[in-house]
């Protein structure tokens, strides 16, 4: 729609409210089309994930505070080294011959004194410089040591393909997110089934998944999905840019430091009032249902629902009671006909609680601050 708003040259005295409202609606539509164009470009691969962050980082290299990490340390250190030497050979050139003579005489006369002072300054500066070298060397040894403790990534081909849209918790997730007006991110979105379900109820949803192969059905359906891990993606999302987030899949086997980082990113990328829907296997369910290879090679282990509630509450989230689901392997209680029924049922309850409870849970949390 293009409103035909009269301009001043056309003699309009004043605009009506309808004219103004029509113009605002028109510009909103244009903005929505611009957003859709960006999403389309991202989905098509024209705009690789992280491209904008790479451009920002490249610019930082030209800024006075731009170098990062080890390169910045070494660069700064070379500046310290370069400044540690004090030259006492004062220039004596002058436009006038007498000027050069006077300057030369002063230099010669004060040379012994300057030598004495400068020797101490240089000694101090080199000691400081030496100290920085020792610190930087030590940091690099520590970094190398940490690298040897790094566990390998879980091979993508052993991870089962995700289909969150048909999982038991999909209905609850869609209900929790219906009505969210800001963008909604589905992590580990797999074939895009949950993204499609959210889009169908009017939610501006998109997804990421580390495996580009599993995304093909979603791309075929024209959904906005990108081949990225959740941590990489959130790293380039602006603060408070998302209205809600769904976390599932690889969330369960993140390393402890990655999990901490993820929680930090989630709490900063969601708007205040934003919703987090978190699905995970229980530790017991993981032990019984995950494949042997995944259990052996996964760098981390799933957490209990109570632990997630604790972590999220500490970041300012209000957390709902978990919804339990997945395979229910609990043993049935025996009838009351037997004389030993009570003691047998007590034993069954204990076994159920400790080993055979629900294998999965869903937590919905709202960012309050």
């Amino acid at each position, binding site marked *: 729609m293009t409103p035909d708003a009269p301009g001043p040259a056309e003699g309009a005295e004043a605009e009506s409210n309808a004219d103004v409202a029509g*113009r605002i609606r028109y510009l909103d539509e244009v903005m929505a089309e*611009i957003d859709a*164009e960006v999403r389309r470009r991202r989905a098509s691969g024209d705009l690789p994930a992280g491209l904008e962050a790479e*451009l920002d980082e490249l610019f930082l290299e030209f800024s006075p505070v731009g170098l990062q990490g080890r390169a910045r340390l070494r660069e700064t250190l070379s500046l310290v080294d370069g400044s540690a030497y004090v030259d006492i050979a004062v220039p004596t050139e002058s436009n006038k011959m007498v000027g050069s003579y006077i300057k030369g005489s002063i230099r010669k006369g004060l040379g012994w004194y300057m030598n004495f002072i400068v020797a101490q300054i240089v000694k101090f500066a080199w000691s400081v410089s030496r100290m920085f070298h020792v610190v930087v060397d030590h940091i690099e040894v520590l970094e190398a040591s940490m690298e040897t403790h790094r566990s390998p990534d879980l091979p993508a081909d052993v991870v089962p393909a995700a289909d969150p849209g048909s999982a038991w918790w999909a209905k609850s997730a869609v209900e929790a997110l219906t009505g969210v007006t800001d963008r909604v991110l589905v992590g580990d979105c797999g074939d895009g089934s949950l993204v499609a379900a959210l889009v169908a109820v009017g939610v501006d949803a998109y997804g990421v998944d580390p495996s580009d192969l599993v995304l093909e059905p979603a791309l075929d359906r024209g959904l906005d999905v990108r081949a990225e891990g959740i941590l990489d993606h959130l790293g380039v999302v602006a603060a408070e840019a998302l209205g809600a987030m769904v976390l599932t899949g690889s969330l369960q086997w993140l390393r402890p430091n990655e999990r901490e980082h993820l929680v930090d990113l989630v709490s900063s990328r969601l708007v205040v009032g934003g919703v987090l829907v978190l699905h995970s296997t229980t530790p017991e369910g993981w032990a019984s249902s995950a494949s042997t290879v995944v259990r052996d090679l996964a760098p981390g282990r799933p957490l209990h629902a109570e632990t997630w509630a604790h972590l999220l509450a500490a970041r300012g989230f209000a957390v709902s009671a978990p919804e339990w689901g997945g395979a229910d392997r609990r043993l049935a209680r025996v009838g009351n006909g037997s004389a030993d029924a009570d003691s047998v049922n007590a034993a069954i309850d204990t076994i159920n609680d400790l080993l055979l409870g629900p294998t999965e849970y869903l937590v919905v949390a709202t960012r309050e601050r």
Partner: protein
Amino acid sequence: MTAVHQFVPALLPRDATGDHTLALRDTFRAAGWESDIYVEAAHDELQHEATYFEKYPGRARPGDILLYQLGTSSPVAEFLLDRSEPLVLDYHNVTPASFYVGWEDHTTAKVTLAHEQVVSLAPRAVLGIADSAFNARELAALGCPATEVVPILVDLESEGGSADPRELARLAARHGEATVLLFVGRISPNKGHERLIETLWVYRHLYDPDARLHLVGPAVTPDYAAAVFDFADELGLAGAVHHGEGLSAGQLTAWYEDADIFVCLSRHEGFCIPLLEAMQAGTPIVAFDAGAVGETLGDAGILLPTTRPATVAAAVDRVRRDSDLARNLERWGRRRLDDFSPELTRQRFVEVLGRVADQVRVVA
């Protein structure tokens, strides 16, 4: 007789604050008031228009109202703090020091001092006049007892004039049919020039491989300017970024008229006069919603919630492809200019300061 004397750190020709101060002085005199300009420094061309502020005590009269054009740090602020006359601030905003940290120590110190002076002056003033509601909120938050929003006095028709035809021809010959993005403003870290370079890169990558970016404005933060142009070199855009500086009014109008789209990705603006200049030239505007940009632009342009290059590039492409949209933006821009007409602004200043003068008389 009402007397409103203005104090301004520097009175400069072809400068927004300088033009505003001179136009206000003429407005007050036309209203039958006494009005002089006191400065810390004045350009040679304008020496005859101003008096050094240190001379004011010898000329002070009961009932004087002092109007301070506040936009930077100056000893004038300390001087006014010690005066007993009713003080009115005309606040043009001070760029936060955080933008300069790491780039330029002396500017960081200068704007920090300016902010400290605003903090001291705001509660001392009887009224704060602000170019924008954004600036008014800042003044009120610092304890200014009353604020009024009155735009900066800018007479685009008499200042800009018509475009220099030789400059127009020269620019057109350089870029042919390529899309030209334009930004006008000093090259300073709060203006977001690096995002303009990133936008150009993405726009060329996705939409028009020959597109160009024209930047007009002095490189007031040399390290930042060098970083911006080195960054452009690194991205292979050296030949696509064209910098103009020290342009005459006719040449500047030519740069506006030559451009396809005016793109403003500034992260902090207290008003943003270049938006009005773009409207005057009929150049469609795409701008990031920061500071007072949204309220100055109104709905006469595409207002973006982000400076992410992909979104900015898509917005530029949308305007470039949709001639109806471009025409509408041009038309709405010209209409928006009516809200900032010099006549209206002059009336508002006389009305607002007239009320202050009435109060001063009642108290006396």
